């Protein structure tokens, strides 16, 4: 198990597969020549350089050697642990820019090392409490340049009011305790981007259903969606928004929508019912759930029904948790907790208060 060469190989392979042109440059670099090439990014270069300078080729052979020797000395173990911890820290630091495939590769190798170390330790006769590794890990965590979690840094800057009010797009904003449909949206244009902001205790229904909702006949075509500052509300969008959805600062909401891209920032307690063909993104979020778009809100005319069978809505990427482990900030909504198909507030006549308190996440 020669780690560095494996690392390099996977990197080369990936780049060759993607970019034949960069092949030679990367090879060059590896033989130490590409100072000028500029093809390998600084972090990757640094990562590789450090990986090469570490005696980690020997690491596995040293591990093997120790294993074959019977009980290992504490010093030897300490030294190994330190090196493995260093590798771990480098990998953590590198997660932001290493392709995920490579991350997984390195992760696997490291795991093997760590496992070997554990075995060695348990097989050594004297077993003093061994705390080195843990300390090391904690250090690397605190020294990595990550902004504090859950702090919505952008919201502290109020948007210039003029910018928002100048908009020519459609806007639905500053309302509470209302049932809203597409006829509630004041607009000169009938298609394009839609902004929904500053709602509390509202239902927004932009879905046309077989049984028909008011104002749904000329269902608006949406090519970009911006949603921000919404609380205690249910937002129902069609499954075929032809563009991206950006959501900021939502709390205690249900969002139903289908779109090309989904990005949610600085939000909490939101249940998302999603039809999507790319990976959904969350950042600075907590207590988010994801599940598929409800069958009953699909119209017969919606061509993209096959998106229902796609599971993309579950390949959520949490940019506040760029690690191989499961993010603590979101989970899959169990079927038992889904709003029953017949339970969506289709009609203006629903009791708003009762509906919201029954359906919204607690």
């Amino acid at each position: 198990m020669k780690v560095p060469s494996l690392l390099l190989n996977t990197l080369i392979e990936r780049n060759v597969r993607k970019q034949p042109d960069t092949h030679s440059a990367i090879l060059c670099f590896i033989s130490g020549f590409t100072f000028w090439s500029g093809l390998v990014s600084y972090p990757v270069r640094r990562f590789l350089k450090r990986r090469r300078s570490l005696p980690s080729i020997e690491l596995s052979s040293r591990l093997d050697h120790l294993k074959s020797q019977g009980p290992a000395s504490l010093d030897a173990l300490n030294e190994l642990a330190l090196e493995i911890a260093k590798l771990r820290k480098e990998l953590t630091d590198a997660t932001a820019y290493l392709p995920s495939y490579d991350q997984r590769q390195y992760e696997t190798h490291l795991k093997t090392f760590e496992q070997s170390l554990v075995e060695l330790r348990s097989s050594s006769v004297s077993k003093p409490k061994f705390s080195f590794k843990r300390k090391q890990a904690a250090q690397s965590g605190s020294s990595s340049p990550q902004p504090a979690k859950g702090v919505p840094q952008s919201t502290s800057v109020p948007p210039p009011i003029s910018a928002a009010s100048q908009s020519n797009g459609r806007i639905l904003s500053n309302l509470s305790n209302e049932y809203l449909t597409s006829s509630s949206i004041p607009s000169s244009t009938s298609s394009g981007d839609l902004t929904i902001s500053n709602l509390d205790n509202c239902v927004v229904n932009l879905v046309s259903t077989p049984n028909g909702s008011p104002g749904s006949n000329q269902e608006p075509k949406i090519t970009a969606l911006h949603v921000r500052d919404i609380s205690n509300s249910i937002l129902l969008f069609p499954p075929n928004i032809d563009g991206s959805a950006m959501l900021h600062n939502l709390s205690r909401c249900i969002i139903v929508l289908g779109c090309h891209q989904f990005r949610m920032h600085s939000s909490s307690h939101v249940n998302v019912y999603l039809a999507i063909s790319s990976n959904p993104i969350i950042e600075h979020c907590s207590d988010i759930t994801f599940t598929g778009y409800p069958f009953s809100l699909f119209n017969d005319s919606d061509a993209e029904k096959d998106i229902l069978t796609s599971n993309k809505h579950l390949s959520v990427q949490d940019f506040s948790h760029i690690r191989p482990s499961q993010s603590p900030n979101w989970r899959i909504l169990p079927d038992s907790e889904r709003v029953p198909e017949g339970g969506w507030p289709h009609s203006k006549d629903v009791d708003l208060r009762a509906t919201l308190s029954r359906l919204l996440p607690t």
Partner: protein
Amino acid sequence: MGLLTIIRKNRQKEHEMRILFLGLDNAGKTTILKKLNKEDISGISPTLGFNIKTFVHDRYTLNIWDVGGQRMLRPYWRNYFEQTDAIVWVVDSGDRFRMQDCKEELHSLLTEDRLAGASLLVFANKQDLEGSMTSEEISEALDLKSIRTHQWKIFSCSAVTGENLLEGLNWVVGEVANRLYYSTT
């Protein structure tokens, strides 16, 4: 032979340029690149990390780095600054709420020593959206005219229709070529 001459000579042989695509998340960086490269633009996921694209434009080999713009990734942008010949700053012209954010990120980028001298192309993207801001409005909102440290120019464009993408690219490649290959120093 001074160091700069050596660099220039080296580059001249290769006729290579390194271009960095940056901007807030959702601006359309990856989509623009795919469109320029005549690839399918549906099903693009937000960029976690970076993409590298290499293509030949005129006589030049462009090495384009497309780095993710999610807030979490922005501290890592600086890892890509070295030897950058041009920055392409992509703006979502429909995102009025985040113009302030966009302006601050751009201006702090331009104070970076390692980007000194790089040409700046601003793409006012998503012009196909009805409610989008014009390039003049964006120029104003981002306070582009205060930029003295870099050669810059703004182009309105749409990654979906392809409008003006090549024109923008031509400009920036021309700028860099003049500086790297045809200057007389």
